[in-house]
């Protein structure tokens, strides 16, 4: 499949935004939501370049709108296009031998050099230091321990905080997402080797 993220024309993009809402800001927010979900979808399905595929999906949707197709729900329509792209991706992979020279190293994260790992840990420490004491304790405790110890930790933590397991899980996930973003920015500022 030929993916060309730059193939979206301004009129086609405007048409897409108009269909997402009258207010341009609201439409832009909806556009970002749709794109985020598409990136997630391609990532979950094991796609190597999920962002490119998400952009290609949106481009195809915008082109359909520009051609006069009637689309009731852009988000659902985009998911449909994404699934077609996934099928194309699967067919392409099955038809062609893997181009070795172009293949990325899939296990790069598993053998991160020590100095990079140290930088990751340093950045994460820095970001943890910016959390409130309660949040810091929550996330460290939530992700602490192996298997059974982790389960016990989490149920004890939920009881101590007086919140359900589901609420605790969501709170930990939000903190983790914030920390990952903070650590990513910190690494970029320090110029760590990216995978």
């Amino acid at each position, binding site marked *: 499949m030929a993916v060309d993220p730059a193939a979206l024309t301004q009129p086609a993009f405007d048409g897409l935004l108009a269909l997402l809402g009258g207010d341009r800001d609201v439409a832009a927010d909806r556009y970002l939501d749709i794109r985020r979900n598409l*990136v997630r*979808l*391609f*990532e*979950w399905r*094991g*796609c*190597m*370049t*999920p962002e490119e595929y998400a952009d290609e999906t949106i481009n195809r949707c915008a082109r359909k709108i520009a051609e006069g197709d009637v689309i009731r729900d852009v*988000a659902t329509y985009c*998911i449909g296009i994404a*699934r077609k792209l996934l099928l194309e991706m699967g067919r392409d992979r099955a038809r062609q031998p*893997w181009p*070795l*020279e*172009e*293949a*990325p*190293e*899939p*296990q*790069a*994260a*598993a*053998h991160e050099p020590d100095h990079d*790992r140290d930088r*990751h*840990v340093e*950045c*994460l*420490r820095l970001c*943890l230091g910016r959390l409130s004491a*309660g949040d810091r*304790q*929550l996330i*460290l*405790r939530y*992700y*602490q321990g*192996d*298997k059974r110890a982790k389960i016990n930790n989490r149920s*004890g933590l939920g009881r*101590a*905080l*007086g919140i359900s*397991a*589901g609420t605790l*899980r*969501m709170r*930990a*996930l939000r903190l*983790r*997402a914030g*920390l*990952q973003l903070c*650590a*990513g920015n910190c690494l970029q500022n320090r110029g760590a080797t*990216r*995978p």
Partner: protein
Amino acid sequence: MRSQRNNETSHVKYLLGKMTEEEQGDVEDRAFADADYLSALEATEADLIDDYVRGELSQSDRRSFEFRFLTSRERRRKVEFARALATITSESKTQEPRAPARPFFMRALWGWNPVLQFAAAAAVLICIAGGAWLVSENAASRARVAALEAERRGFEAREQSLRQQLGEEQNRAAALAAQNRQPSEAARAPLVAALVLVPGLSRARTEVEQLVLSPSVQIARLDIELESRDDFPRFRAELRTRRGEEVLSRGNLVRRKSGPGFAVSVDVPASALAVGDYELALKGIAADRTSQDVGYYYFGVQRR
């Protein structure tokens, strides 16, 4: 709770690519329609990554994870983050967080009648008097505890010093192993096992190099020493079993300086290596994309 567990199980199957196309579609549709379900799926993804970096996945799940899950850059970043988080959580021993203060208790006290307030005040006085007695009684105990604490610190300092000595001994052993080019040099990094393959070995040679993989090893690093004439911009490695079954190929490999010469490193997921004998074919890729055989290297894999 049971439904949460069912969801987690199906999320793990989905994330590892162990569902039919239709089942995958169902999970995705639900995730995009229900924010809570989406968050639960993301939480499972985070836990799955943590299990991977802690080596808690089964052999089959680990393979699925490595071959399907680690494909995108964003996900590899998530793995790096999880690894850093695991390092920090294993170091820290956080204390049980305290339950939030309950201000309603004080408010309730103000609402009591005078008799109850008097009784409460008397109880408080008795507690204070009892507390004072306990404090004096405890003073002697504290002195004993302080002495024991000092003794414990002494033990800790001694332990610290022994650990330092042990660390120095380990470093010295690793340096010696590096000099001798033994495979045991991988012991410094328990997640990576390394094997150095040198040119000039033939299939007919009776003793081949052995790569010993312990259960904690995730990556096997094969360092192939090059001869000075092997001056290619890129290399390709093809790993096969001795019976000729292809295990994996790696392209885009670039040589690096290694001691007086050059070497190429190939990383192989340990889960892809069963016990047995292997052949690694190294090809040089010239600037015009033509390839040329550099050499064939033979080694065996053992599991500990």
